[in-house]
């Protein structure tokens, strides 16, 4: 079972839900932090790292001796990552989407692929909880291939919790696609509601069952509740605002460590998710 945690709006509590859910499930669970632009789960879990790996994507390298400057590579490239100017071929690796088109089209076999580093994959554990995250290099724009790489760490024997990035564009879709359940986390404010609607649109497009957690449930208005009812989005958990929770979070402490009574709520949350996902 793979559960992705998403939100639309940032800062609603995705990482809090993902880390506490994973820790509450304990044995047999796994967390994959796919918010590769700003991975935060490690700050709360302090995992022991077993492996750190540089992640690369293939980009073209031109053998100038073989190249006859025909320009077919530049014609096929949709991303302006390869151009022929006068008597040289220039490559712009940061624009390359690794489609392999230039290599396939080159009549002289003058193009090979080399690796370009996007960031790092870290694999570790905290007691019996397995952990993996990706960290995009600062200045790097290409998040989805790194997210895909983090997802390859999913262990089918475990309950896998994915911490997704905010938003609704390609990085989030990459993190949520082909998961068994999307747990949306929102706050009952106009911003929270607006971005939740976008996230629900993305979940519907992917055709994945979903449920909702309302965080800081007493700070805002009732419109999120009305909306959830109108689109049959089940509310699976509510967490009222508590300064104690906010302060513990600020120190990097897990909610279930500070207020152990929450552990039961997270186990219940998982049971309801399993019920819906298996229905």
């Amino acid at each position, binding site marked *: 079972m793979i559960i992705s945690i998403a939100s639309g709006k940032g800062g609603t509590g995705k990482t809090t839900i993902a880390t506490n859910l994973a820790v509450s499930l304990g044995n047999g669970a796994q967390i994959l932090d796919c918010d590769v632009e700003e991975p*935060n789960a490690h700050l709360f879990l302090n995992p022991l790292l077993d492996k750190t790996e540089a992640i690369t994507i293939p980009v073209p390298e031109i053998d100038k001796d073989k190249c006859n400057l025909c320009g077919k590579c530049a014609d096929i490239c*949709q991303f302006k990552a390869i151009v022929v100017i006068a008597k040289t071929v220039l490559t712009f690796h940061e624009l390359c989407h690794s489609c392999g088109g230039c290599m396939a089209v080159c009549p002289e076999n003058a193009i090979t692929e080399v690796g370009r580093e996007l960031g790092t994959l870290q694999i570790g554990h905290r007691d019996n909880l397995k952990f993996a995250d990706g960290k995009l290099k600062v*200045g790097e724009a290409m998040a989805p291939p790194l997210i895909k790489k983090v997802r390859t760490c999913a262990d089918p024997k475990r309950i896998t919790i994915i911490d997704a990035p905010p938003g609704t564009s390609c990085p989030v879709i990459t993190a949520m696609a082909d998961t068994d359940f999307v747990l949306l986390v929102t706050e009952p404010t106009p911003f929270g509601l607006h971005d939740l609607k976008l996230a629900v649109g993305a979940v519907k497009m992917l055709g994945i069952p979903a449920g909702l957690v309302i965080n800081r449930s007493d700070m*805002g208005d009732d419109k999120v509740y009305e909306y959830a009812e109108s689109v049959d989005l089940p509310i699976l958990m509510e967490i009222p605002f508590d300064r104690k929770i906010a302060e513990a979070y600020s120190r990097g402490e897990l909610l279930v460590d500070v207020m152990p009574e929450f552990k039961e709520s997270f186990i219940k949350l998982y049971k309801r998710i399993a019920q819906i996902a298996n229905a």
Partner: protein
Amino acid sequence: MDELIVISGKGGTGKTSLLAAFASFAKNKVLCDADVDAADLHLIMSPAVREQHDFQSGRSAVINTDKCTECGLCRDLCRFESISETYEVDPIACEGCGVCVYFCPEKAIDFPINTCGQWFKSDTRFGPMVHARLGIAEENSGKLVSLVRKEARDLATQKGLDLLITDGPPGVGCPVIASIGGASAVLIVTEPTVSGKHDMQRVVQLANFFKVPAMVCVNKFDLNLDVTRDIENFSKLNGLKVVGRIPFDPVFTKAMVNGHTVIEYDDSSQLAKKIKEIWKRVLLNLKSAS
């Protein structure tokens, strides 16, 4: 012309609410929402849309089943696993690289341009605003960000305004890179939490990478004074201007629910005075940066 981009690294630190409050004080400006992926500024600004345009970018493969002989070449060549066994293209998985289109021996694959969203020129009670809506699950957010920034700049020139205030996206990836390149300065709004600090440090690296001067403001500073001091010390050590602290205050949520900036909600509050001081410092730094 000065261009201020408000970013944060971590989401939910109060970027948009603070920017909206600045809009109450700033003069002769154009507002711009570059968080095209989850744009929220319009919820406070209630813009009256004057112009609406489609945003077209990238292409997607579409297989014409009448011409397709199911030879399988496209499936072999596609590195994004976007062509199914029944020769249908998954538009979400399709990267728009066109390799299948080029090599199809039957010329059975069309390659139409995508309409990925809309962008708008609007009027608000605080002046003109340029904003956008990226379609759900769409790509090319960076290009849409560049477009709204350019349109905001053109609109300011046309109206003789000399300040752009732009709401940036969270993170450090593609849309953030497109938001800050060439800006006069960025204001990083963070919060005193381990994740707020971690994420702001990465966004500081990004600003340095693109050589954009950065300022820092700690929102909800009283949630953790130790981390607040850590962030401020880190900022000073790295040559960033610290423009002030804002206390945790539920008024931000109350004002948002009412569709108001916190200044409109209560312009005589301590909070309003605090934000006014911060805005003055931001403006001063912005002028000296440009």
